[in-house]
């Protein structure tokens, strides 16, 4: 358990540092936090008094250190303050967008993981054959295209030229399950295509490095059928480092999701974040940063734990 505690400690320290940074980086940004309060959408300028009262409402009139304490105080009660633009608690604003991104990643990443692993196994099982060469080059090609290009191509082919799927990714009231799947299909496919390339390449590398180990030859010498050799021996040995690395991939995948959300105008976390930057609604920005930071730290921790527990050699030491 020692190692787990050390890991937790490390991540906690990282989190605290990030929280403080999160607060400071935004408040010190060259854009004035009051810009959003100076004029409404139509450009009508607020009078000084109106602005003062709005600032008081959001607690922006107090000195920075007082705001810092209030920020941390609220944090521990799990509240993230109120969005300037939406006049609603930040948690309530973020929740639906976060859910949308989670759905996109959930539906996209895990099938991509399965397909990626399967293709990698095939590649390794049939290495030195055109199958491996072909798969490898297609995946490299997939990774060479700018991510939003594949998303655009999908939108063009399957929604515009050949209207199989809706062009709008958002839902409508009373949408049945089938309809919902149809509207999510293209964004999910675009995101999965982007991730499957990376997963395949990473998995293929990990499996190859295990292929040469003596226990693989020993397994074959025990008359174990080839499929069993790959699934039970090669994959099992490559799994711990592979899963850890893939969890890190998931943490980094917020970038990939961003392009998909941008091309399909999908109401996910990054769409919200960009809108919040435009309006400089920084309590909301802080919330978005915290959520993405939390997700990444959790996934990092998960990666470390996976590495520790999946491998018996390190299990007791952890």
């Amino acid at each position, binding site marked *: 358990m020692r190692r787990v505690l050390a890991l937790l400690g490390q991540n906690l320290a990282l989190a605290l540092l990030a929280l403080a940074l999160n607060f400071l980086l935004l408040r010190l940004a*060259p*854009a*004035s936090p009051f*810009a*959003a*309060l*100076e*004029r*409404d*959408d*139509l*450009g*009508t*300028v*607020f*009078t000084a*008094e*109106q*602005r003062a*009262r*709005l600032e008081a*409402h959001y607690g922006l009139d107090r000195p920075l250190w007082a705001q810092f304490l209030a920020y941390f105080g609220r944090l521990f009660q799990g509240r993230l303050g*109120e969005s*300037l*633009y*939406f*006049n*609603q*608690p930040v948690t*309530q*604003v973020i929740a*639906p*967008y976060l859910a*949308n991104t989670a759905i996109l990643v959930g539906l996209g990443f895990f099938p991509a993981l399965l397909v990626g692993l399967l293709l990698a196994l095939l590649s390794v099982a049939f290495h030195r054959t055109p199958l491996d060469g072909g798969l490898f080059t297609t995946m490299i090609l997939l990774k060479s295209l700018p991510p939003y290009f594949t998303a655009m191509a999908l939108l063009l082919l399957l*929604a*515009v030229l050949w*209207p199989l799927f*809706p*062009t*709008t*990714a*958002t*839902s*409508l*009231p009373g949408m049945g399950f089938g309809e919902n799947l149809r509207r999510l299909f293209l964004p999910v496919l675009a995101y999965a295509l982007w991730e499957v390339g990376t997963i395949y390449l990473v998995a293929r590398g990990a499996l190859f490095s295990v292929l040469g180990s003596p226990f693989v030859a020993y397994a074959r010498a025990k008359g174990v059928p080839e499929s069993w050799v790959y699934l039970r021996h090669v994959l099992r040995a490559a799994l711990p480092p592979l899963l850890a690395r893939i969890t890190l991939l998931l943490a980094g995948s917020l970038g990939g999701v961003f392009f998909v959300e941008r091309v*399909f*105008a999908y*109401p996910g976390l990054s*769409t*919200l974040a960009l809108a919040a*930057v*435009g*309006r*400089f609604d920084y309590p909301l920005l802080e919330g978005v940063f915290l959520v993405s930071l939390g997700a990444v730290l959790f996934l990092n921790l998960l990666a470390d734990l996976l590495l520790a527990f999946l491998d018996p050699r390190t299990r007791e030491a952890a």
Partner: protein
Amino acid sequence: MKRLFGWLIGLLLAGQGLAQTYILAQMDAGDPTPFAPLRQAGPHWIVTSFVYDTLLWRDAQKPIPWLAESWRWNADKTELRLSLRKGVRWHDGKPFTAEDVRFTFELLKARPELSNQANLVKDYVERVETPDPYAVVFRFRRPVPDFLEQVLGWEKVVPAHIWGKVDNPLGYQGPDRYVGTGPFQVREYRRGEYYLFEANPDYFAGQPRVTQLVLREVANPVLALRQGEVDAASLPPRLAKEFSGQTGFLLTPPQPSYAYTKLIFNTARTPTNRREFRQALAYGINRERLIQQVLQGDGIVASPGGLHPESPWFVKGLPSYAYNPERALALLARLGYRRQGARLLDPQGRETFLSLLCRGQDNARGCALVKEDLEGLGLRVELKVLETAPMEEVLSKGEFLLAYYAHGGTFNFFQNPDFPASVYKNPRYSELYRVFIEAKIPGDRLRAAGEIQGLLAEDLPALPLYHSLVQAVYRDKAGIRLFWTRGGLAGRGGPPSFYNKLAFIEPKGEVYRR
């Protein structure tokens, strides 16, 4: 009980195929509560206009009585007496009375941050009295002629029996925050996806034409229209073309929207502090080409007076600054600038550098064209693109020379005496502006407006560039006929829109005849 009844109606109509859903393409504007100080002017106002009512409303041409049936000013315009419409009910069934109006405006007086017009209520309204349940009297400290249109046509009346119990209306999250008197009530709001409004069967001004109204944001309105993902959207004419003549689709005539783009000069820094220099630049920018290249012709050149041609105070005959590079160079020569080969040297013989700020990525195209035009005169232009917030910061601090700025439409001059950015100080302008606000006789207002436009066209603190043309494309369903509300939805010249709630109700009795 009311909601149950409404729901039953929905079922009944649904049964006979009359129940219809109409989907509007509309930007998401957050929680549809009545109080949203920062969001209220734009999309939020359009969304909430279906749920709440104002004392006055506007039809295609002019303001019309709405919750207020009739009104009378006293002689010196310090007292306004309104008589309210009877038999109007809130969505939760409670009757609408004068107490609601009194409560709403006293609340705005106490908390001017709730709405950007509220500062006028605070400054000018002394007291609001309710002699009887359907009569309201406003007492003013100083006469405000267009208080009717600018405030009563703008502020949404809220139920006193709900908001009376709320200590801080800004950010109130109670479930009953959506209660209004409007033709539709909020059934569901899925943030970032859609608003679902349900018909209010006994709306005082008429029966809603559809049982459900959905407002949703779409990435590509043309594709969405083609594939039936939305029933109505506003498009530039070049995109609306493909739908004209298609069965099932109707189009409104093209309309110059009030949103406009302008080039703001920093009148406090050399060289843009010299009026001739600003005029020379104005002659050096080809606004026709700007419309042709950026909007493919879907736009009209904006008047240097700063007002939209549809504004009642629009004055013709101002200097047009049509593209004339020779005139520009002549003006610059008079200031001592000399042309040497391709470069323009300032009076001290140095190359003239100008910094041009551009608000947001979407205006990058326009900025690049302006930069090309100015470089055509021999100026060296360095261009920077800034997001909204950093741009506001730079503008308010005056740390800029030229700023390519675009924002929502407005019907009259800026509310505050200082023109676009707080940099432009002109006592004559501030004085004329006060006259314009407080002129009692319409004639004085028109004259003051004319003088202001003349001054702006001459002094040119900012060069308005163009208004883009928009056109509504919508499905012919449930007898809905969209129209352009001249002067903007709210009395003060609010957001330009084709979605006037009148188009969505079957007019009843004498309240409103199409």
